[in-house]
Every structure is written in structure tokens, then in C-alpha cells.
């Protein structure tokens, strides 16, 4: 049929009238910000897979050592450097310790260090950055110079020295990472607060007599919560890497305690005789970091208001 030559005649139109009720009705169910973010995460395959992997790892880290008949430091001279078997699912290490149990005990250490260090960094950074950005002026300038200096100092060197001073262990690791790590979160929050503090809703809160502390906590922080969570997710992998690195050079967690860094260190030494001792911890470090990164990417998209309703 040739549409171009059709003439448009009035009889092809119909008056439908005005239905005020229908015009004002809400066509989609109202969804909160958090619910929408969840829906978007769920539809993002890579991010959702990351989330599932992390949940599985956390559950295994909690329960696998409890359910196994071996303990993480139980040696067995008759079962050294074995490969995979029904007895030892991931084989055994050079002292005959069960690798399956050691991997999940190590996961407890690596995951909790990663999470706790990143969380403390974010909390300290958010509080300091929030006030610095909100008040501005001299305080802000001094803080920003301090952060420039902390940024300039190679954090790894400080981490190493702090570990020597404090001795090995989980607490020392977390302290060492927090000393240098809060500056990043601080700089980020400060920038966001700077951007938000001139907006109308903050002005409204101030006019209504809200205290500064409450304005930061109740008005500004909820607005940047999504970005903060995204940054937290992205900060965990670097904390896990840092733990692995410090344990590798002998300053993080020391054997017989296990962490993924300790296992990787033990594995590299025995790579030629029992490669699985390296591949298994490497696999878990790799997949965990990958999962956090994918989840972080997904969260960034999910919390981005510019992308709202595009899919």
C-alpha cells in the first residue's frame, strides 16, 4: 500500500476528551531508590554473578571449616603434597595439612581484612571529608594539603614499616592499611559534599534550623550513599591484594595461620612439585577480586541517576 499518497481527512480522527483522573494517575508503581538499584543489579548478569560468588565464598568460609573433619593446622606426615582426592578435596600441602580447610580458614582472614579495612577507611574518610567539604575555608585547605602529602607517600613502604613495628597479625594489617587508606575516601567525599552543599535541599534544611552535624548526616550522606557503597566495594579488592602482598613477603599473617596470601606464598615455593598449591589460592584471590570489581561496576551503574529508567 502506498502511504505517501494518502490524504489525511478529518474523519480519520476522533475526539477522546480530557480525562483528568487518568492524566494524573501514576502509570508505574512507585519504587524507592534502593529498590530500583536492587532491580538493576539483579538484571546485570556480571554484577549479579559477582554477588552470588561472594555470598557462596562467605558461606563456605563460615561453614566449610566447621563441617570438615580436619583442622587448618593439623599435620599428617603420611599425606604430604597430595593431589585432589575424596579424602582431601583440594589435596594437602607440604606438611600434610588439608588444603580445602586451609583455603576457607584463609578466606575468613582475607575477606574480613579486606572488608574491615575498607569499611574503616570509608567511615573515617567520609566523616573527615564530609566536615572538610561542608565547612570549607582554612580547615578544608589544611586537610587537603595533609591528604596531598599522604597521597604522595608510597603507602606500601609505610605499610611494611608499620607491620614491622606492630608485628604480624590481622589487627596490625588492618591498622597498617587504615593509616594510609582513609585519604582516598576522604578526598572523594569532600568533593561530593562540595558539590551538594549549595543545593536547595541543603539550604532548606539550614533555613529550618537543622544543625550542621544533622545536615551532613541526614541530608548529604544519604545522597552520596550509593557512591560510597560503590567505592567501598572497589576498595575491598585492593585491601585483599595488599594483605596477600604483605603476607607474601612475610609481614602479614604468619603460618600456621592461613590467609590467601600465606597460601600463595607457600604455593610459589612448591610450584614445581605441587602446582595446585599455588593455583588454588590464586584462583580464589582472582575470582574474589573479579567478583568485587564486577559488583562494583554494577553498583556504580545501578546508583547512577542518569541511567534511571533506561532499561
Amino acid at each position, binding site marked *: 500500500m502506498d502511504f505517501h499518497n494518502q490524504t489525511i481527512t478529518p474523519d480519520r480522527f476522533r475526539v477522546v476528551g480530557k480525562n483528568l483522573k487518568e492524566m494524573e494517575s501514576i502509570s508505574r508503581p512507585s519504587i524507592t531508590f534502593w529498590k530500583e538499584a536492587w532491580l538493576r543489579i539483579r538484571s546485570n548478569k556480571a554484577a549479579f554473578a559477582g554477588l552470588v560468588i561472594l555470598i557462596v565464598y562467605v558461606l563456605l568460609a563460615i561453614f566449610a571449616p566447621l563441617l570438615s573433619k580436619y583442622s587448618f593446622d593439623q599435620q599428617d606426615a603420611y599425606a604430604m603434597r597430595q593431589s585432589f582426592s575424596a579424602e582431601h578435596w583440594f589435596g594437602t600441602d607440604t606438611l600434610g595439612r588439608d588444603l580445602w580447610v586451609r583455603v576457607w580458614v584463609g578466606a575468613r582472614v582475607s575477606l574480613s581484612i579486606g572488608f574491615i579495612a575498607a569499611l574503616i577507611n570509608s567511615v573515617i574518610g567520609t566523616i573527615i571529608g564530609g566536615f572538610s567539604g561542608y565547612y570549607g575555608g582554612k580547615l578544608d585547605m589544611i586537610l587537603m*594539603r595533609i591528604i*596531598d*602529602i599522604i597521597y*604522595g*607517600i*608510597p603507602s*606500601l*613502604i*609505610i605499610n*611494611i*614499616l*608499620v607491620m*614491622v*613495628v606492630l*608485628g604480624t597479625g590481622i589487627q596490625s594489617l588492618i591498622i597498617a592499611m587504615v593509616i594510609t587508606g582513609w585519604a582516598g575516601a576522604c578526598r572523594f567525599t569532600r568533593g561530593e559534599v562540595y558539590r551538594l552543599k549549595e543545593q536547595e535541599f541543603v539550604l532548606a534544611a539550614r533555613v529550618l534550623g537543622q544543625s550542621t552535624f544533622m545536615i551532613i548526616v541526614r541530608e548529604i550522606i544519604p545522597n552520596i550513599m550509593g557512591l560510597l557503597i560503590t567505592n567501598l566495594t572497589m576498595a575491598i579488592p585492593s585491601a585483599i*591484594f595488599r594483605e*596477600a*602482598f604483605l603476607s*607474601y*613477603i612475610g609481614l602479614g599473617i604468619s603460618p600456621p595461620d592461613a590467609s590467601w596470601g600465606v597460601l*600463595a606464598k607457600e*604455593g*610459589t615455593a612448591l*610450584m*614445581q612439585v605441587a*602446582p595446585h598449591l*599455588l593455583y588454588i589460592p*590464586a584462583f580464589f*584471590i*582472582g*575470582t574474589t*577480586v*573479579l567478583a568485587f*570489581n564486577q559488583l562494583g561496576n554494577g553498583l556504580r551503574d545501578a546508583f547512577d541517576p542518569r541511567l534511571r529508567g533506561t532499561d
Partner: protein
Amino acid sequence: MVKYITKRIGISILTVLVLVTVVFILVRLMPGDPFNDPKMTPTVRANLNAYYGLDKPVIQQYATYLGNLLRGNFGYSMIYPNQTVNNLLASSFPYSLDLGIRALVLSLSLGLVFGIISALNRGNKIDLFFVIVAVIGTSVPDFIMGAILQYFFAVKWGLLPIAQYYGFAHTILPSIALGFYTMASISRIMRASMLEVVQQDYIKTARSKGLSNFRITWKHQIRNAILPVVTVLGPTVAAVLTGTFVIESIFAIPGMGKYYVESVQNYDYSMILGTTVFYGTFLVLANMVVDIFYGIVDPRIRIAGK
């Protein structure tokens, strides 16, 4: 621009000063001291302490150290007899620097090229390949990458030397191991940046002017997309250069990493201070140069700082 550079130099000097102070305090807080041989008589120990000035008040030691530092003198090692820290640094730092520069050049050039190829082939198999390489690269710590490369290329297939640092062949594996993570993250940043730039209006303008695809990609897209990569250069340089410590130990390269770890274990005060301050200062300077370079590249800073 001058103001921007002066400010940047001022911050760098302050950073170095803070670094020296923090490291000095941390070293003195370490449990144990360099002369802890149980066979040593108290007199010998006291003499050694006096020789190295460790019997003086800490503040005075600090002042002396700063004074010597200004003249570029790092003092004597407390463990290696009659060796100055300057000598030890001069013999080992070139290896670390060489490895670091190789890794940086490798990771920057390949990272940019991979990112660009990936973005230009968005969605097809070539893109998928580079994305997977990048994902693996950013998920594996460099010491594990080093061990795996060493196992396959040197031990199993015998293609390249296992360790040491004599000629070009020896440098290949350590450089790849050290640079892989950075290469992967740069290719990711470059890919994302390329895809962001391609949606900008000036690309549409260029296209509507009838410019060739090559010209658009080369002159408009890549040039603008490279800025985010320049912003991460500072931290990247620091990460690659500090990463040499572990890679050196895996490939038995006689660089600074060995002395650093040894001095930490032996409580060799002057050596710990020397290596840390030297290395830290080097990184601070590298960072400063990158920042100033960034100021020159980015017209927004160039104009705002006038």
C-alpha cells in the same frame, strides 16, 4: 601555570620531609635493635652505639640525619661493615629502575593500544578477547603472575631464563609480570574513556564535517580519551616501582628490594631509612613530574592556574 608548578613543588618538598620524619619515628619504634648478637659484650655494644651515634638523644640523631641527608649522605650501613648506604643504593637501584621503566613502557604502550583496539571493535570477538585479558590482569596479584610465568616459560618450556638479570632475555618475564596488572587497568580505563568520548557532540561535528574515520579516531577521539589515563599515571608509576620489590625476589634480581627486606629484618637503621627515603623521594618526584605534565596537557589547569 607558574603558581601551579610552585605549589606542586612545595607540596613535594613537604611530603619528603614528612616521609623522612615518619620513617625515622617508625624505625625507632621497631622492637629490637641492630646490635643484638648475644655474644656481644656490653662494652662492645656501647662502643658500637657510640660509633653510630645511637647513644645521643633521638632529637639530636634526627637533626644530624637531616643535616647529612641535605648533603646527600645516607650514612654507613650498620650490618654490612664499611659499606655506605649510598654505595649499596648506587649498586642496586639501577636494576630496580631498569625493571620499573621496562614494565612501565610495556604496560603503558600495550595498555593504550589494547584499550583503543578494544573500543574500536566494541561488542565483537576481538573486544571480548581484550576485555578478558584485562579482567584476568586486574584480578591476579603480580607475585602470582610472576610465579606462573616463571613456571611455564622458564621451567616447563625452557623458552626464557629462569632468573638473574644479564641481558634482554632475562628482562622479559619480570617486566611482563610487573607490568601486566597496570597494562590491564590502563586498557580498561582507555576502553571506557574511548566509548565515552565517541558519544560527545564534537565527534558528531567532526563526522558531519565529513572528516575521515581515521582522522576522527586519531585526532579527536584518542586525544581526548587519553586524559583519564594521564590522571592515573602518578599512582601507576608508584605502584609499578614499588611492585619491583616482590618481582625482584621471585626472579633473583639484585635490585633494591633485596636490601630493603634484609635491612628491615636486620634492624639496619641507616639502611632502612636510606632505602625508604631514597625510594620515597624518587616516587614523590616521579609523581610531581607527572602532575606538572598533566597541568601542561590539560588546558583547564593551564588556564586556571595563570
